[in-house]
C-alpha cells in the first residue's frame, strides 16, 4: 500500500497544479467580473434580487426558452448531418474518407462576420437561392428567418463537433464486437443500432453536449441573423452596451454557466453505470466493409449532398473574396484578385501569430484536458469532478467577460520593465486556451472512456509503474481522441475573436480573426475580409489534413505492429 500512497500523492499534485492553472486563468478573472451579478447596482451590497428580476422579466424568460429550443433542435439537425458522414467514412471502404472527414470539419472553421455575410448572399431573403426560386417558381423560402434560421446556421456550423467525436469513437470500437454480432446474424441497420451506436455513445454524447452548450452560449450567429431574443445575445448586448455596469448582463452569464455545467453533468449521468470500453487488440476500429455498387452510389450521393450543404458558407466566402460587386443578384457582377492583393501584405504577420497562438493553446488544452479526464475517470481523488466542471464552465463564459476579467486581473501587474502583464501576447494564448479547453477535455474524456481498464491493470500487474502505464498504454490508445481534441481546439482557436478583441494590444501581436474584424468594419471591406477569411480557412484546413494523416498513420502503424 506504500505504493498506493506515493501514487495518490503524485495524482494529488497533478490535480493541484491543474486547479491552480484553472484558478489563475479562469476562476479568478471571471469572478472579478461575475460578482457584479450578486451586488446591488450602485450600492455594492450583496443581494440575490437580480436573479429575481431575471425571473420576472418576460423578455429574459422568453429568451431562455428560445435558447433551449434552438439548442435542442440544433442537436437534432446536427446529428442528422453528422451520423451518415461518420458512419459511412469509418465503417465502410469509402474512397476519399479522409477528405470527407477534413471537409466535414471545415464548417467549424468559419471566421466571424464573413461566414454569415456569405450565407446571407446565398440563402438570405434576397440571396442567390431565393432570387432564383423567385424567378423560376415565384416563391421564396425563409431559410434565414427567425429561430429556424438560427437552427439552420448553427446545425451547419457545429455539426463537426458530433462528426469528429463520433468518428473517433467509432474508430475505437474493437472490430471483434461487430464480427461477433455479424456471426450471430445481425447486419445492416440493426448492426449499427445495436452495436456500433451504443458503443460509440460516449463520443456521440461528447459531441452532442458540446453542440448543445455551444449553441446555447453562441452570440455571433443569432446576432448576425438579427435574432436578439435568445439568452446569450441578451447577455452580450447588455454587457457591451451602455449598461456595462448593469448587473443583469452578468446575471445572464451566471445562468449560461449554470446551464453549461448542468448539461455536462447530465451527459455524464447518461453514460454513468455503463461500460463502453472494448479491449482493443490492435488494428482497432470497425472492420471496413465493402459497399455494393448501388449502395455505393447512394452513399456518395448522401455524402455529396451533405457536404454541399455544410460547405455552402465556404463556397459563398470564396465567391465573395473574388467578387467585385455582389448585390441583389445570384452571382457577383464580376471577379477580381484585388482583395487578395490588398490583404496579402498584412496577412503574413496575422498568419504567423494565428499558427503560434492556436497551436500553443491547443497543446495546452490537450495536456490539461487529458490530465483532467484521467484524474476523473481513473482516480479516486476527492473533488476531482470539480476540475471537470470548472473547465467546462469555460464553455459558457462569454468571451467578453473573460477578456475584461483578464484586463482586471493582469493589467495592474507590471513586468520588471514597467509594461503591464496583460499586454504580452502570451495572455492572448492563455485566453484562447481556456476558451477552447472544453473541446479537448470532452474529446479526451470520450477517448478514455472507451479504453478498458483491464489493459492498464495488466500492465501494472506486469510491474509497470503508474507513470509508465500512462505513457505506454493510456496515451498511445488515446491518441486518436486526443488528436481529435487538438484539431478541434486548434481549428476553432484559429478563428476565436471575442476575447482576443479585448486583449489585442498591437497589430504586431494580432491574430487573423482580429485582422478580419478590422477589415469588416466597413461595407467596402467585405471582399478583403472574405479574402483573409479564405486564407484562414485554407491554413487551418492544411493543418487539419496533416493531423488526420498523422492519425491515420498511427492507427495503421498500430495495426501492423501486431
Amino acid at each position: 500500500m506504500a505504493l498506493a500512497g506515493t501514487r495518490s500523492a503524485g495524482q494529488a499534485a497533478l490535480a493541484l497544479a491543474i486547479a491552480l492553472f484553472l484558478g489563475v486563468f479562469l476562476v479568478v478573472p471571471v469572478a472579478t467580473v461575475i460578482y457584479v451579478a450578486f451586488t446591488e447596482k450602485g450600492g455594492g451590497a450583496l443581494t440575490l434580487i437580480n436573479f429575481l428580476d431575471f425571473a420576472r422579466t418576460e423578455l429574459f424568460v422568453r429568451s431562455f426558452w428560445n435558447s433551449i429550443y434552438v439548442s435542442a433542435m440544433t442537436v437534432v439537425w446536427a446529428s442528422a448531418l453528422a451520423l451518415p458522414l461518420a458512419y459511412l467514412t469509418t465503417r465502410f471502404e469509402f474512397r476519399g474518407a479522409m477528405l470527407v472527414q477534413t471537409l466535414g470539419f471545415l464548417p467549424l472553421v468559419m471566421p466571424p462576420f464573413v461566414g454569415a455575410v456569405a450565407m446571407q448572399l446565398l440563402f438570405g431573403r434576397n440571396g442567390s437561392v431565393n432570387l432564383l426560386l423567385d424567378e423560376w417558381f415565384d416563391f421564396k423560402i425563409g431559410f434565414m428567418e427567425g429561430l429556424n434560421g438560427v437552427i439552420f446556421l448553427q446545425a451547419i456550423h457545429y455539426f463537426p463537433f458530433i462528426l469528429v467525436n463520433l468518428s473517433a469513437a467509432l474508430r475505437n470500437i474493437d472490430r471483434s464486437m461487430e464480427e461477433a454480432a455479424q456471426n450471430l446474424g445481425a447486419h445492416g441497420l440493426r448492426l449499427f443500432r445495436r452495436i456500433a451506436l451504443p458503443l460509440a455513445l460516449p463520443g456521440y454524447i461528447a459531441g452532442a453536449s458540446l453542440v448543445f452548450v455551444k449553441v446555447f452560449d453562441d452570440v455571433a450567429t443569432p446576432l448576425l441573423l438579427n435574432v436578439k431574443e435568445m439568452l446569450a445575445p441578451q447577455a452580450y448586448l447588455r454587457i457591451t452596451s451602455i449598461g456595462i455596469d448593469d448587473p443583469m448582463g452578468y446575471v445572464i452569464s451566471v445562468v449560461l454557466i449554470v446551464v453549461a455545467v448542468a448539461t455536462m453533468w447530465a451527459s455524464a449521468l447518461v453514460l454513468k453505470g455503463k461500460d463502453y470500453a472494448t479491449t482493443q487488440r490492435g488494428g482497432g476500429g470497425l472492420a471496413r466493409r465493402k459497399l455494393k455498387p448501388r449502395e455505393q452510389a447512394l452513399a456518395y450521393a448522401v455524402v455529396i449532398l451533405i457536404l454541399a450543404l455544410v460547405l455552402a458558407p465556404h463556397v459563398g466566402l470564396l465567391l465573395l473574396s473574388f467578387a467585385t460587386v455582389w448585390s441583389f443578384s445570384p452571382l457577383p457582377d464580376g471577379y477580381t484578385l484585388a482583395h487578395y492583393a490588398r490583404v496579402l501584405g498584412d496577412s503574413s504577420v496575422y498568419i504567423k501569430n494565428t499558427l503560434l497562438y492556436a497551436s500553443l493553446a491547443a497543446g495546452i488544452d490537450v495536456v490539461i484536458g487529458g490530465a483532467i479526464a484521467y484524474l476523473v475517470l481513473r482516480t479516486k481523488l476527492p473533488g476531482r469532478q470539480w476540475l471537470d466542471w470548472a473547465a467546462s464552465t469555460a464553455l459558457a463564459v462569454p468571451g467578453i467577460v473573460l477578456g475584461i476579467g483578464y484586463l482586471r486581473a493582469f493589467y495592474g501587474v507590471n513586468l520588471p520593465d514597467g509594461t503591464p502583464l496583460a499586454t504580452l501576447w502570451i495572455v492572448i494564448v492563455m485566453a484562447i486556451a481556456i476558451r477552447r479547453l472544453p473541446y479537448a477535455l470532452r474529446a479526451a474524456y470520450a477517448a478514455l472512456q472507451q479504453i478498458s481498464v483491464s489493459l492498464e491493470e495488466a500492465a501494472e500487474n506486469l510491474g509497470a509503474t503508474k507513470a509508465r502505464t500512462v505513457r505506454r498504454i493510456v496515451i498511445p490508445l488515446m491518441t486518436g481522441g486526443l488528436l481529435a481534441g487538438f484539431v478541434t481546439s486548434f481549428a476553432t482557436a484559429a478563428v476565436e475573436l471575442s476575447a482576443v478583441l479585448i486583449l489585442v494590444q498591437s497589430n504586431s501581436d494580432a491574430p487573423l480573426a482580429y485582422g478580419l474584424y478590422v477589415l469588416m468594419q466597413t461595407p467596402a471591406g467585405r471582399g478583403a475580409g472574405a479574402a483573409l477569411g479564405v486564407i484562414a480557412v485554407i491554413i487551418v484546413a492544411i493543418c487539419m489534413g496533416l493531423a488526420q494523416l498523422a492519425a491515420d498513420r498511427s492507427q495503421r502503424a498500430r495495426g501492423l505492429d501486431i
Partner: protein
Amino acid sequence: MIRLSALTVGFALGLILAAGAAFAQTGKVTVVTSFSKDVTDPLKKAFEKAVPGATLEVQNRNTNAGVKFLEETKANNQVDLFWASAPDAFEVLKSKKLLSPYKPKATGIAEKVGSYPVNDKDGFYSGFAASGYGIMWNERYVKANKLPTPKEWQDLATAPYFDHVSISAPSRSGTTHLTIETILQGEGWDKGWRTTKEISGNLRQVTDRSFGVPEAVNSGQVGYGIVIDFFAFSSQGAGFPVKFVYPSVTTLVPANVGIVANAPNKAGAEAFIEFLLSPAGQEALLEPTIRRLPVRPETYAKAPAGYPNPFKDKNLQGLLTFNAELSESRTAAVDTLFDQLITFQLEPLKAATKTLHDVDAALAKKDNAQARALAKEARDLIAAMPITAAQAASPEIRAAFTGGKEKSSRQAELEQQWAAFAKEKYAAAKAKADEALKLAR
C-alpha cells in the same frame, strides 16, 4: 487582492518563456480607434510621411469596448489617443477624467459644422471631420420591388416601405442614438416618438452593429437603411449600386480625437492631432474609402463633384440646434425605451402597423368615418409612451440606470414595466386596427 496579484504574477511569469519585452520606441503613437482599416491605413501612411520618425500604432476596438478598455487600464495607461465618431463616448471619457485637455494650434478650422460645435467647449477633444445621418437605399432592390425613392424620415413610415427598412439599435450605435435624439428634439418628445414608432413599424430588422445596416443594403437583403453618410459614400466608392439622401431634419456630428490622460507619448499625440487638422490631413478624408466631411472649409475645393459641403449646401446648414446637455441627461432612458418598445417588441408592432397600412388602402378606395376614427385610435395607442420627457430626464429614472440613491426602481424593473406597457398597447392597437379593417372593407 495584493496577495492574489502576487500569486498571479508568479504563476504567469513562470509561463512566459521568451516573450519579447515591448519597450516603447521613441515616436510611437498609440491610438485606440473604432475606425476601420479603410480609414486608418491612409491616414497612418500620410501621418508617418508628414512627421518623420513617428509611427502610428492602431488598436482597433469598437467605441464601447474602447471606452471600457481605457477605464480598465487607466492605472497603467499605455494609450496616447482615443479616436472615434460618437461625441457621447468622449463625454463619458471626459466625465471619468480619462482625457487630458489640448487646444489645437491649427488655424482655419470651422467653429461649427451645421449647428454642432466642432470642438469640445472644455477643450478635452477636437472634431476633425463631420458626418450626418440619412437614408441609404439599394437601387436594384428598389427597382425590382418597384419601390419609391425616399426624401424625408416620414416617407419611411408609409405603406410601400413596409418590411424594407433597416436600422441599428441606438443602444448599440452612438450615431443612431444621435439620429433618434435629433428626431426627438426636432419634433418634440411625443411627436418624435410617434414618428420613430411609425418608421419602426416598417422595419425589417434592428441590427446590433452599425455596419450591419449598410452591409444588408449593399447585398440587397433589405432595401433601405438609416445610416451615417460615410457608410453610403464608401459603399458607392466600392461600386455598390446604392444612393443616399440627407432628410431635412438631420444633424451633422463631428468625429473626434482626444488625448488620453497620462499619455506615454503626449508630444506624439499632439503631433497627430495637428496632422489631422492640417490641410494634408483634411484632404486625406476625401479618399474614396474614407469619405468624411472635412472641418476645414477650403478643403472642399479639392473634393470630387457632388461631394456634400456643409458650409455651402443649404440643407446641411442645420435647422436644429442640437442640445447636447438634454441629450446627455436622458441617453440611457432613450436607448432603453427604443429597445423595450421597438427592438424587443418588433413583431407585435409590425403586425399592428401592417393592418393599419391595409386599412389605409381600403379607406382610399371607399371612405368610412368610423373605420377612420378607429384607425386613429390605434395609431394613438401605438404612439403612447410609458413616460414623459420630464420623467425621462428625472433624477429617479437616471438613478435607476446608474445605481444612484434617488432611484425609485431598478433598471430591470423599469424595463419589464416598459416592455409590458408596449406589449399591451400594441395588442390593443392591433385589435382596433382589425376592427377598422372589417368596417372599411
